[in-house]
Each structure stands twice: as structure tokens, then as C-alpha cells.
């Protein structure tokens, strides 16, 4: 929190604890076809009228959405509908794509992350990311996890660093599997283990939020189950946003679901509601498998 609060002070914005901001019943203008949530949940991130362009081509149209704190939110929708684009704009990974521009706002703890004073590097430490294809560094398992803490100076001694690595590997359930070969390359692990290693690497820099872009699409069912279990476990401490095109997965793991279609956010709300009584025909069509 300290970093964003610092940024906020510089911006002259007063913010309270993140718990103060609540999901209010959504106004129809900002949230087309939104199922208003009955209970109030603290929110972590907010997107307002977010549009993203790749060169001339618009990939996202005026997306406004609230992401609840310490819950799992799933983005679903047919491929090419802009889920990844939206996810990547939440930690400014789109900045690295040449020709990618955006309008609108993304607020984290009340701070606009696209504000000039925000340090992108620190932002990405706070908002970790797990990618579709497991992408461990071609370094040892240990170094994969230790890299983030090292560059951010999170450990002052070798012992502290060892401690961080052990904890993170333990939290992802990898420690028992790899404790004897910490210094073998991370790329020598199986696909599922690699993905859990990537999750361990992401949590090693103690982020608040973890963004996952189809983290299980390259994994077999057993590894998938393992990662889903892990997400449930991590949800206690982290806000998790997961993109998936597996609707069973969204239904299994998430509390909230947002459905995207052709670059627009069609509908979002409690997962149960989205899956049992969607408001929009397109959502209905997608979850019943009529297209996708």
C-alpha cells in the first residue's frame, strides 16, 4: 500500500484504507447490462471507460469494471474478444507493445496507474503476472524465484533470500517436489510444475494482485487441478484475476465473472448469477456453448 499511498499524496489525492471503497450498485451508464451485486465487497481495482487500440484497430471499447479485493475474478469470452488485452492493461504490460495506446482509467487502491507519476516497475512488482505458456527463465529453479526479490532488494542477506525462495516454493506446493534440485534449470520441470514455478516467482516479490492469462491452457487436467487448488489457497492473501476460456474452470474457482465479446464487456457480476441467470443473450449463448 505504501507505494500507491505515496503516489497518491503526490497526486494530492486522499485515500483511506482500501476497504473504504466499496462496490456500489453499478450505474447503468457505466456498466451496461450489469448484474448489480447485492452484498458490498471491498474493491481493489477499477477500470473506467477503458479503450485500447493496437495502432488504428480498437481492441477494447469503453470497459468499466470493478475487481474485488482478495477474491478471484474470471474473464471469459470467445478468443480474440480482448480478455488478454484488458488483463495486460491492468499492469501496463501493454506499454511494451509498439503502437498500443489506451484511453480511460485504471485505478488501483484509488490511484490511476496510468498517471505520469506512477513508477511502472514498482507497479508491476505490486501486480504480478502469470502467462499462458509457462515461461520460467532459463536459469535454476532457485534463481527463478530469487530473481524478483534480488532486483527489488527485498532480501538483505543470503539467508533471507533462501527463506523467501523456500516459502514461495512451499506455498505453490513445489518445495517437496524440487527441494533436492533447486539448482537445476527451471526449464527441466514438467509443464504443470513450470507454471507453479512461475506463480512462485510472481508471489516472491509480494504483490497484492496476481493476473493470470489462461494459466492452465497448456496443462493437463491433473496439473490444472493442482493450479486451481493453488489459486483457491492464494486467494486468501491476493487479489486474483484469471482469464480462461474454460467455463467450468471459471465456475469452479471464481467468485466473480466478467463476460467479454468483440472488445466490449457484456456482463459481469457474481459467478453464480452469470452462469445461472445471465441477463444478456450473448452471455447466455456463450455459456450454453452456442458459440465460442
Amino acid at each position, binding site marked *: 500500500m505504501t507505494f500507491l499511498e505515496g503516489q497518491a499524496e503526490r497526486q494530492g489525492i486522499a485515500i483511506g484504507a482500501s476497504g473504504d471503497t466499496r462496490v456500489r450498485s453499478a450505474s447503468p451508464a457505466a456498466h451496461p447490462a450489469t448484474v448489480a451485486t447485492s452484498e458490498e465487497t471491498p474493491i481493489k481495482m477499477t477500470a473506467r471507460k477503458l479503450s485500447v487500440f493496437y495502432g488504428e484497430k480498437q481492441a477494447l471499447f469503453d470497459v468499466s469494471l470493478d475487481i474485488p479485493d482478495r477474491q478471484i475474478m474470471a474473464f471469459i469470452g470467445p478468443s480474440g474478444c480482448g480478455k488478454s488485452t484488458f488483463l495486460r492493461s491492468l499492469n501496463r504490460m501493454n506499454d*511494451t507493445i509498439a503502437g498500443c495506446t489506451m484511453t480511460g482509467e485504471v485505478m488501483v487502491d484509488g490511484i490511476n496507474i496510468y498517471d505520469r507519476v506512477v513508477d511502472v516497475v514498482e507497479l508491476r512488482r505490486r501486480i504480478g503476472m502469470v502467462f499462458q505458456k509457462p515461461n520460467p527463465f532459463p536459469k535454476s529453479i532457485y534463481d527463478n524465484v530469487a530473481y524478483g526479490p534480488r532486483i527489488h532488494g527485498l532480501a538483505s542477506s543470503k539467508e533471507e533470500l533462501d527463506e523467501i525462495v523456500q516459502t514461495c516454493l512451499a506455498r505453490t506446493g513445489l518445495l517437496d517436489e524440487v527441494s533436492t534440485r533447486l539448482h537445476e534449470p527451471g526449464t527441466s520441470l514438467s509443464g504443470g510444475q513450470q507454471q507453479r514455478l512461475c506463480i512462485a516467482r510472481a508471489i516472491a516479490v509480494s504483490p497484492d494482485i496476481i493476473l493470470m492469462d489462461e494459466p492452465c491452457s497448456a496443462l493437463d487436467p491433473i496439473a490444472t487441478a493442482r493450479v486451481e487448488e493453488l489459486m483457491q489457497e492464494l486467494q486468501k492473501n491476493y487479489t486474483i484475476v484469471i482469464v480462461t476460456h474454460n467455463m467450468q474452470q471459471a465456475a469452479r474457482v471464481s467468485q466473480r465473472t466478467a463476460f467479454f465479446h468483440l472488445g466490449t464487456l457484456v456482463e459481469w457480476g457474481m459467478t453464480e448469477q452469470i452462469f445461472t441467470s445471465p441477463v444478456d443473450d450473448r452471455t447466455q449463448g456463450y455459456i450454453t456453448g452456442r458459440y465460442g
Partner: protein
Amino acid sequence: MSSLDQSLKVSGPGAAPDDAAAQRDRRSRRRKTANLRFKLYGLAAIVFAVGMLATLVVSLIMTGYPAFTQTMVRLDIELPASEIDAAAPSDANYGKFFRDALYGLFPEVKSPPQRRNIARLVTQDAEYMLRDTVVAYPSMIGKTHSIEFTASDILNQLHIGAIDRELPSDRRSISDAQIAWYDKLVAQGRIRAVFNTALFTEADSRHPEIAGLWGAITGSFYALMVCFILSFPMGIAAAVYLEEFAPKNRWTDLIEININNLAAVPSIVFGLLGLAVFLNFFGLPRSAPLVGGMVLALMTLPTIIIAGRAAIKAVPPSIRDAALGVGASAQQVAWHHTLPLAMPGILTGTIIGLAQALGETAPLLLIGMNAFITQQPGGILEPATALPTQIYIWADSPERGFVSRTSAAILVLLGFLVLMNGVAVWMRKRFERRW
């Protein structure tokens, strides 16, 4: 097969089924012969290329191998203590000691012109070799020693069979008398052929029998060092900037096109540039490996930049994403991930670039690295030759001994090139894709 036949038959409406089958047969036969012809063309091209290469190498070896042996003449030299001042041994008259020993072998020859013909059997530098030996080992003074001297070029050629003694005497460079003296020396067991170490340890000389490549090798080494030190960091910096940081716009496109074109600029143009800018404008020393290296760096730079960019491009974006995702800055991504992963590729390109530079002649001629220099350079500012320019000098020399030495020098240069390219290939194999 039958269903395929049917479908093909159906697809040829109007034609009788048998007709269609015959046509299909013909077409497939034509395709097969075309394939075969194409393969044969390729094979012929390869056979031709390999044949040319083999011809080149074989002819080089045929002309070059005599240069790897050197004939030696053993003389018994008396070093009287009375005539050598042990405090200043270099002042003594070694020419006299040497001639005494040599002429002593042929007491019947008295006339000075005849004696000079005897002296022409041994290298003209013999007395200096003797002096240097005695200065190095003063304990030799006062005794008689059996010492081997490098034979002169004509005697060397005769001994290794490069001069045909059956030829009429006016058509060979060695006289009948000299052949007779040679036979006498052989009869006394004073002639011996040894491996020509001088070729690798001595610098250039007017006399082929004592001319070596060491000066050119050190000159080339210094020039390549300068070239590497300049072009490697600059090439990497440029490649990283262009790949990782540069915005994609008209200016960077222009730079990219120019770099690619630079790689195709004839090397003599770089030589002219070096002459005009480095020598005439900045007043750097002529013939110096420093200037040679700077000119070669200009030529190597585009190669390294192009290889570097290709290697950086080959690093999967997922690695960059991963690093950015844990909050690495662009600079950290480049230093910690992209560059280390691209380094084998960059080094391979660099070695190939340096190998090209090693063989480059034209620009070095323009900045004067083809001077006649009999000492190996002591540093990058001293005048020097390089391997290719040494070959150029020797190829231009009329003495018989330089003909084989030229081929030998080319073989040495080719050896270095093969070695460098071998290292590059090995590195490419060794570090191939680790992700």
C-alpha cells in the same frame, strides 16, 4: 487407392476414363524427371564448388609445402678468445670467423669472386646470427663450435629438389661450381633439412630463407584486438538499442537500411576513409595496427550489429514478459536476460566478422600496412604488416623462395580462418537454444 482413382476420373469430365489415366501417368512421369533433373543440377553445382575448393587447396599445398622445410649448413666455427672482447662481445668481427670456417672447407678455392659464390650458399645474415648467438651465450668464446646456419635460398631450393640440376646452367639460378660445393658439403654430412620454425618466429626479410610470418601474425593480432575492442561493445550497444529501445519509425528504418548497406560497402572504400580521416586528418601513424584495427572495426561493426540484432530477436518474448512481469526495468531485462541469452549468437557473429577482417587486404594497403618491416611490432602504434598484406608483399617478390612462402602464408591464413570459423560453429552448436 480405388476411391482416389474414381474421384480423379470423375474430376476429368468429357475425357474417357482410360484417357485420363494415361494423362495422369504422363504427368507423374514428367514430375519425376523434373525432380530428378533439379536434384542433378544441385549435385553438379556442389561437385563443381567442392572441386574448385579442392583444386585451390591442393595447389596451395603443392607450392607451399617446401616452405615448411628449411635446409641448414653445419659449420665448425672457431671463436678465438684473443679476438673477442668478453666485455663487449658484439664488437668482434664475426664475418671473419664465419668466412674462415666456410672457406676453410674449400681450401682449393682462392679467388675472391669464387669465394663470394661460396658465401652465397649460406644466408647473408649468417654473421649476425653468429654474433647474436655468441652475445647470448658468452661462454662460447674461446672454443670451436659446430653451428648450423640457414642455407641460402638457392641452396635450399637445390636441396629440396625445387631446382633441377640437369638443366643447363644458364637456365638455373645456381652455378655448376656451386652445385659441386653443395655435393661436397652433403658428402661431409653438413647439410640437413629441418622443419622451418623461422617461418613462424621471424619477421619479414629481403632474404626468403630467413623471412617469416611472425611480424605479420602479431600485426594482424594487434589490428584484430583493436578491431574487437572497438566494434564489439559498439555493435552490442547499437544492436540492443535498435532491438529493445528504439521506437519503430522512419528514422530507425533509415538507420536499419543504412547499417545493412554498410555491410555491403566495398572494403577499399573503408580504406580510403581511414586514409583520409585517421591518417591525414587526425594524423595517426601510418602502417600502425591501431589504424588498421580502426578501419577493420568500421567494416566489422555492421556484421556484429546485424548478428547481434538477429540473436536478440531470437530470444523469446516470453522471457522478456516474464522479467517485466516481476518488475524488471527495460535495462534490467536487457542486461539480465536478453543479452546473456543472445550472447552466443552475438559472439558467433563477432568471430565471423573478425575472420572476415583478418582476411581483409585492400583497406590495409591504403593505410600502409604493406610496408617492408623486418621487426615484429612492439605495440599498436608501431609500423607493422598483417597476414594478408604480407602475402601481398611476398607474392610480389621475384625470389624463388618467396613463391613457396606465399603459398605457405596463404595456408597459415586459411588455417587461422578455419580455426575461427570452427570456433564459431562450435559455439553455435554448444549454446543452441536453451529454452
